[in-house]
């Protein structure tokens, strides 16, 4: 059996699918975030030991790290849909890219904000021009720039293309953020973020962190699909199927 994937590339076909998926992703997100937060905040060690003796404030990582991961992942998704849209001229890809941007911006902001709250007690400062902090801030500006550029151009098709190009050029920041802590000798660098490695995080800390990540990922699906449905309806407003949908939802 072959599935005709191009069928789902039509906004009219994807609109009802997205509608059916939203409640499921929403429920999974709510469950995983509640479990992850309770686990991280109440069932893990009160403080860390060894060479990194952080006190209770270390618990911010249960929000901070998943948010930072999602901020980078969603940018890859944004740039990916932008590239597909530019090459194949598919309408839904551009709508998908546009729907992802606000969620990505929110997670980038969350990562920066929680990072500042953590940095004050541990490092001794809310903000430092550390390579990772700086590149994450630039990622936030890229998301904002994408949204601003898109809304600055009235013609939707031109706005899609211009913003997609910006998204692809901004792709530069993702590996920079990821590799911004490759300082060969920590004592020779001013960077405050150090090399990180999931292997040196104890499982009792890593698993709630991954639970939160899956929860935020699930939330992203739900939020992006909800936004996507609005974008589809707005852009396809002239089509007959949209009037059918609206008539059906009005009676329901």
């Amino acid at each position: 059996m072959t599935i005709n994937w191009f069928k789902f590339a039509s906004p009219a076909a994807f609109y009802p699918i997205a509608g059916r998926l939203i409640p499921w992703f929403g429920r999974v997100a709510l469950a995983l975030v509640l479990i992850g937060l309770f686990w991280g905040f109440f069932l893990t060690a009160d403080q860390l030991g060894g060479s990194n003796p952080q006190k209770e404030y270390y618990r911010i990582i249960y929000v901070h790290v998943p948010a930072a991961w999602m901020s980078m992942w969603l940018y890859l998704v944004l740039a990916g849909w932008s590239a597909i849209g530019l090459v194949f001229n598919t309408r839904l890809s551009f709508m998908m890219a546009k729907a992802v941007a606000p969620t990505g911006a929110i997670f980038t902001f969350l990562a920066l904000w929680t990072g500042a709250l953590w940095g004050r007690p541990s490092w001794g400062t809310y903000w430092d021009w550390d390579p990772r902090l700086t590149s994450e801030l630039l990622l936030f500006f890229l998301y904002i720039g994408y949204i601003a550029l898109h809304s600055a151009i009235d013609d939707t098709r031109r706005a899609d293309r211009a913003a997609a190009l910006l998204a692809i050029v901004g792709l530069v920041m993702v590996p920079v953020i990821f590799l911004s802590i490759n300082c060969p000798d920590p004592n020779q660098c001013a960077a405050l973020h150090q090399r990180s490695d999931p292997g040196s995080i104890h499982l009792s800390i890593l698993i709630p962190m991954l639970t939160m990540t899956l929860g935020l990922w699930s939330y992203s699906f739900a939020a992006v699909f909800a936004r996507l449905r609005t974008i589809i309806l707005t852009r396809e407003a002239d089509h007959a199927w949209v009037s059918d949908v609206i008539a059906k939802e009005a009676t329901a």
Partner: protein
Amino acid sequence: MKARQKRLVLVGLALVGVAGATTLALSALQSNISYFFSPSQVMASEHPTDAVFRVGGLVVKDTLARQEDGLTVHFKVTDNAAVVPVSYTGILPDLFSEGQGVVAKGRIGTDGVFYAEEVLAKHDESYMPPEVADTLQTAHVDGIVEQTTGANTPRSATQ
């Protein structure tokens, strides 16, 4: 060439350009940030004399001394090659301790002491509950003891 293939090539070229820019940005990040100096560079007088700069390294063990006013601390910072004495008045960050990495911002006084306006502590990648960290530490010490005694036993047996 079809229009779609042309666009594919254009997006491909854009990605190549992006990859080039990434490489340049990463190599720029790797080179030293201009206002950061290691204790060795400070001892070799490579630092600016009239501007604020940062010095970073490890806090030398047993050098942290709190002064009589209760707020000023003196300690020494090393990169395992040279040592710079630092004086700082203020509250130290939580992760500051002897043997750990710090970055201090300030200027060198005429007496050769680095007067810091800001002292930042670094953290490392290990995220362990204290019990686990203690167990690892004990296991490490046990391993060393075992190794040394294990190496000694055959020698004493032959003697």
